[in-house]
């Protein structure tokens, strides 16, 4: 896998609007962004309502994913182009999620919604009707998903990459600074984790930095040992999906997992070790 296999620019997206083999999907937490205007022909996915189980804290299961994609008119043969707001956090999360269920023909739009808007490209409010399909998902690929016991066992043994902001890492904030801070769980980070905020991997317009810049960031600046397996985490697993995309898809690192339970799970566990303070 390399950059050209997984990442496309806005010109590519514009050229494939209406391509019957390509389904463009906007993924947001705030789906009113889609309602305000989206890339013409794009459908929407809500990262929570559509992709999370409504009762248990987990993803929708294989059957649920099959039902969702069938209902939205996505088939196994479609190339799915994902984009979204927040510098593609939720689109990267959906990308990882599609890969988790075995959909390999998936692409991310570099810069996402932000670059599209800042470039003043066309946005449409037309909502496309897509014919139903009969989608078949694979079993979850657990080689890219970490659960809590694996994370605990990885302390001091694997690369743990905390991609939250330095204030969240140090324990001064419990959520990003654009959200209220009324959280109940403990603050801090998993011992031995390196702090490489997701934002360092992105340019101001939301596009990813070059491969050379990214390698320098993780290897030289953060001191990540690319010879070891890696688990990335954030608060709820979407910023770390952005970093998973960088390490696993752009830099082609094997054995990189996203811990989607992330800090909202780890910081609420009883009896686990937590560190406070700045990155070392």
């Amino acid at each position: 896998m390399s950059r050209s296999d997984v990442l496309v620019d806005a010109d590519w997206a514009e050229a494939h609007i209406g391509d019957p083999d390509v389904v463009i999907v906007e993924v947001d937490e705030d789906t009113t962004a889609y309602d305000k205007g989206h890339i013409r022909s794009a459908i929407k996915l809500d990262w929570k309502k559509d992709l999370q189980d409504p009762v248990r804290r987990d993803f929708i299961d294989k059957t649920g994913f099959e039902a969702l994609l069938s209902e939205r008119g996505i088939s196994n043969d479609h190339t799915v182009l994902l984009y979204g707001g927040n510098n593609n956090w939720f689109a990267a999360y959906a990308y990882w999620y599609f890969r988790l269920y075995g959909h390999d023909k998936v692409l991310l739009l570099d810069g996402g919604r932000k670059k599209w808007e800042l470039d003043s490209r066309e946005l449409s409010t037309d909502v496309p009707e897509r014919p139903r399909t009969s989608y078949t998902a694979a079993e979850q690929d657990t080689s890219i998903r970490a659960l809590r016991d694996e994370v605990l066992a990885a302390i001091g043994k694997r690369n743990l990459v905390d991609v939250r902001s330095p204030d969240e890492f140090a324990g001064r904030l419990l959520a990003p600074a654009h959200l209220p801070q009324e959280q109940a769980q403990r603050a801090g980070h998993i011992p031995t984790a390196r702090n490489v905020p997701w934002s360092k991997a992105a340019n101001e317009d939301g596009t990813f930095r070059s491969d050379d810049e990214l390698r320098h960031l993780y290897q030289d600046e953060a001191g990540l040992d690319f010879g070891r397996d890696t688990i990335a985490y954030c608060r709820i697993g979407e910023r770390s999906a952005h970093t998973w995309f960088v390490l696993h898809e752009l830099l082609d690192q094997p054995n990189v997992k996203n811990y989607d339970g992330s800090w909202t799970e780890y910081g609420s566990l009883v009896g686990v070790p937590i560190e406070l303070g700045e990155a070392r």
Partner: protein
Amino acid sequence: MSPGGCGAPVGGAGKPAAAAGGQAVVEGRVVHGGAPVATGYARLLGTGDEFVAEVPLGEDGGFRFFAAPGSWTLRVLAPGGLRAERSVEADYGRVTTVEVTI
């Protein structure tokens, strides 16, 4: 606003300032040619341009951050290469209001 999430709030400022309680709120509005800028982004940056947070502007050009106390740089990006920067101070229990004309 989705307090359970980690992403964008519902376009710009989504909660009355009075409800900010003891938090360090930085909020405001972005205006261009006398009209609110409804498409654009507000970024909060720390020392050395360290990224802290970003929100899309609301229909009224509004934005809001729940920051840690301290000095921050607010940067606004909008289509057409429009951009502006302001220095802001945040403290617990205070709403810092910034009006940005670009």
